[in-house]
């Protein structure tokens, strides 16, 4: 029967090891991954007037609906300087994801496009290899009024970013269609 007891001891150890490997809380790596807010800052070149538009979804993909989704309103026949800001506002203070995207510029690319020829977007800022990154850009609005959408897309393409990449290449980190109105 001694053998039996040894078995039982071994058994207890096993049960013990199962229960003890529980609930080790580590910092959640997903928190730094989350992007909750896309902020589009537009400065009209002549007047220097700045307007800010936002898309905000605090709990990320799924769950509750976006809490803020602005319509971008611009004046026809004008030139704007655009600066994008990407934030994680689920924590305080908010994380500025733009800094991270800029630091890893060679793996990222921002695409901006206006529907219905409402604006021409050019002068995308560059990454360290001289390829377009797009954190800042210049927008020239159409001469006639109209409504449509303005798409902001952030692509992640580690190791494969090249000149002339179409918007379909890589993984989509952000794709937001703002309503756009040119008056």
């Amino acid at each position, binding site marked *: 029967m001694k053998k039996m007891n040894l*078995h039982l001891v071994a058994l207890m150890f096993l049960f013990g090891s*199962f229960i003890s490997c529980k609930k080790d*809380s580590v910092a959640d790596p997903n928190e*730094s991954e989350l*992007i*909750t807010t896309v902020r589009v800052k537009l400065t009209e070149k002549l007047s220097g007037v700045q307007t800010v538009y936002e898309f905000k979804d605090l709990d990320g993909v*799924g769950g*509750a609906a976006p809490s803020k989704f602005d319509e971008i309103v611009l004046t026809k026949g004008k030139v704007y300087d655009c600066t994008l800001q990407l934030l994680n506002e689920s924590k305080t203070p908010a994380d500025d994801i733009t800094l991270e995207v800029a630091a890893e510029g060679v793996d990222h690319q921002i695409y901006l496009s206006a529907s219905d020829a409402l604006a021409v977007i050019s002068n995308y800022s560059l990454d360290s290899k001289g390829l377009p990154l797009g954190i800042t850009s210049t927008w020239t609005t159409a001469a006639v009024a109209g409504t449509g959408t303005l798409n902001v897309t952030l692509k*992640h393409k*580690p190791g494969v970013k090249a000149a002339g990449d179409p918007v379909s290449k890589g993984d989509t980190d952000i794709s937001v269609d703002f309503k756009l109105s040119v008056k």
Partner: protein
Amino acid sequence: MKFLSAISFFLLFSAFVQAQCILTISGNVKDADTRSALMGATVSIIELKRTILTDNEGKYTFSGICPGDYTLRITHADCQALDFHFHLKEDIVKSFQLSHAENLLKEVVVVGATSVRPEGMTGELKGKELAATRGLTLGESLQRITGVTVLQTGNNIYKPVIQGLHSSRVLILNNGIRQEGQQWGSEHAPEIDPYVANRLTVIKGAASVRYGGDAIGGVVLVEPRLLQYKKTVQGEVNLAAFSNNRQGVLSAVLEGGFDQREQTSWRVQGTVKRGGNAKTADYWLKNSGVEEMNMSAAAGWKKGNKNLELFYSIFNTRIGIFSGSHIGNLTDLENLVRAAVPPDYIKDEGFSYAIGRPYQFVQHHLFKLKAFSEEIGKSRLNLIFSSQLNIRKEFDITRTETDLPQLQLNLQTHSADLVWEHFSAKKIKGSIGVNAMYQDNYINYRYFVPNYQSIDLGIWAAERYQHENWQVEMGLRFDSRNRFNIKDNDKQPYDLLMGNMLVPGDAYGKRSFSGLSGTGVVAYKFNENLRTSFTASTAWRAPQVNEMFSNGLHHGAARIERGEAKLSPEKAYSVLGTLIYNTEKWEAEFGVYNKEIQDFIYLKPVYPALLTIRGAFPAFDYAQTNASLTGMDMRLAYRFTNHFQTHLKASVLRAYDKTAKTWLIQMPSDRYESDLEYSFIDGRKLKQSSLKLGFQYITKQTHVPPTGNIKVTDLAGNTTMQSDYMLPPDAYTLFNLEATTGIEFKKRRLDVVFGINNLFDVAYRDYMNAFRYFALDRGRNISLKIKLPI
């Protein structure tokens, strides 16, 4: 060409050699425990339908037999059949020992002495058939059984689908223990090393009350060989190599025992596996490698009528998820579907063993303790304890450098079973049991399913009555399933029960279900050649935690799944009929079934797609409907000569949504398989050689909803409204070749299986592969499997 002429030579040669029907097989049968001769044991040659009883010295003799492959079956009183496969070319003298204890044990391991197991509704893989699947995953291996298909995610994740049902509707018993992993996910493969088993059995339909009434689809049994209480140490080494993804597998088992005052037995087993990127007919699949490392150990002890068995196994796998399947949003998916091939920078990557993100890592521990005490031939009491720990980690592509997963699930399960089996009355056998199970799921990182605990209790009884050619079996089971402490960690998820935000750490509450399930089987034997059976059963399945409370993004799949907390259990009412006809030339199994499933739980697409910061996402909500599944499984074998035979298999299924009055999506299409097999006469060195050429024809799934809410643009630019992002793929035909032989040297036998799957490197997609949107299925795969005894 040399190969072909060799085959035709053998064919010709065999025609001359035939018909020397003068051979004899004889021997005696003993009781393994008492070593005394066993009188009145039934010995039969299955292929020839010849049966005799042993005389009072335990002797048997068959004479006037033609050369060929046969199976000898020996049965006695309460023992289960013992099968012996042999190749006859000269007279054979073979003696057998029947052990009461061993045979009772075998029966319990299999189905708890409860089930009649009508042959047409079960399928088995063992011996030669199992050897040909070595190195493959459990799901792939089971595909050889008629009526079993797979739900595939890429080329490493295979889930068995039994008559159209899978995941939590299919119960997998690993060494007699309910496998408790995260079975609910379609890309969560069973965490089992198939090398542990020497037999794989599938019980189709809800025909077993022994293991829980929730197996609406069926039960898969993964059964190891019984422990050997012999003094010798023995073992075997298995090697398998595959050309397609340059995969190698090494598995070894060693076992032995001591026989002093107390009898003990032990066994250790281990498997390592590594494969790289798989190749389709046209390109490589980047990041589709796999790594696996498994180990198991078993020990047995017996004294008098008391027995104790211990078993432990650990399973580890790391599976790469094909890079081309990683999409950001709906637009990405539509772009990929339209392009019909993966982007160049993924497609042109070539071969590599490297596994990068996205990948999954899964670890599964199983510990089992079984004690039993028996009065031979009368009754037996079993007590089984088991513990399982399942750790699942999913690693996504991240923007920031990290070693941590994005999702982790830790599932602990502890269960206890008490089973009383009685063989007392001659005509009635049966068993009664109680079962208790405790479970704890703990999540980390991203939310997909909640933390929960659960306590399940079950009580069941199954009795079998046998009289002349009739056999009747009844089974009844009551289950109570309670889930509590359902909650997220300390975050604030959307409260699915109440529809508002939760206070941090608060519970969703608890959900309890209970109900009855039952089975009735009547089987009748017309004569030695023709048998039939009819089964009627009811079963119910409590909604799983993911079906009630999932809320989030599915791993790499760019889709959102949302649970419905108010789901009620689904209830299945099934009828199955089988007809079996066996003669010397013919072997036929025919089964038809109908399952009416009330409140069938499924994922219902939501329109329009959900708006997120990453663009539009397809969303699915769990919903219920009434479903009807009707189908037919058939297997035919015809023996032209002792050397030449052919098989034909067919599975047909129609799955209908009675509420929406349309077909159910994601159901396997009809499949037909056939092969031609030639068995060679034994040579001096080569034994039991055979050559098999087979083909599979899988039809296009046309039984899908004719219209839907998804706008699909074809290559010509025409748009139609469909129920899926891609129309079901076309029908395809695959040819396979398999050659097996046993090489004898120094009284040992080296078994070799050489195979080629997808012989003509056909480019195809399968409707049941979740990656059909992104890439072709696997191309030609040449394999070599070697089994070496030590």
